[in-house]
């Protein structure tokens, strides 16, 4: 019974956050709603027996990405104050389209006979995760490091201040 309540709370967090991101005028609030939605998602991971993922979600997603977006918001501070119309004329189109997508996904989920398999769930998730990382999925592991390197180089080239860059060259 407790699980249902907790699930309900997280659902409010996630969906509320999602809708909040879209509707608020002030993008600072949008960032906050975004973090709320992410924390709700972390809760789900806990419920789905993916504890470590919940921790990673919090550390990486909220801890790094949301903060990064906040920094970006701070950077383009002028947008904070103006309250010009945040949305464009496509409101109706977007609403209908997203609803259609939802119906399609709904249809799919309904058709699948559940549950697929009901074995007992493993407890040492983390060890298995480590073994799979360095075992069968070692190529993605290495390519991720290349990806991170590329992103760092790219971000620094693009974002660096023009004055400092001339100075350095």
């Amino acid at each position: 019974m407790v699980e249902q309540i907790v699930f309900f709370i997280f659902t409010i967090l996630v969906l509320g956050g999602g809708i909040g991101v879209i509707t608020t005028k002030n993008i600072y609030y949008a960032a906050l709603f975004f973090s709320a939605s992410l924390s709700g998602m972390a809760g789900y991971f806990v419920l789905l027996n993916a504890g470590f993922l919940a921790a990673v979600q919090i550390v990486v997603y909220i801890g790094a990405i949301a903060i990064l977006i906040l920094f970006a918001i701070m950077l383009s501070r002028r947008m904070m104050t103006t309250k010009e119309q945040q949305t464009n004329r496509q409101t109706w189109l977007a609403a209908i389209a997203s609803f259609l997508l939802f119906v399609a996904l709904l249809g799919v989920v309904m058709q699948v006979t559940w549950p697929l398999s009901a074995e007992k769930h493993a407890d040492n998730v983390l060890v298995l995760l480590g073994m799979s990382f360095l075992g069968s999925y070692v190529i993605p592991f290495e390519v991720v490091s290349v990806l991170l390197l590329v992103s760092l180089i790219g971000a620094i080239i693009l974002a660096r201040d023009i004055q400092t860059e001339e100075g350095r060259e």
Partner: protein
Amino acid sequence: MQNPYNFVGVLILAAILLPVVGLGVAWLVRPHKPNPIKKSTYECGIEPIGETWVQFKVSYYIYALIFVVFDVESVFLFPWAVAYNRLPLYAFLEVVIFIAILFFALIYAWRKGALKWL
């Protein structure tokens, strides 16, 4: 009821309750007489000039960028650490390559002066 996450739940509950209760009670009991002088932002007593939002230096932003990259790297090393004893030796080699590549990233960031804070 010995689900390990109970403690986490209690902790979160406490984290939310403390500030809310503190501010809530204060908000309830304090008198509510607003006047323009009191409303204006306080800046060491002198008249506030310019926008409240001060010009944001880019290097702060870049610092956040680098934090993201190395934060993700650390998360990847976590499972390796846990499963270290079960993995054959060359797993160590793979992680060394992983760290080496990101070490290059560090050198690059450092040389390009991205790590300078001020």
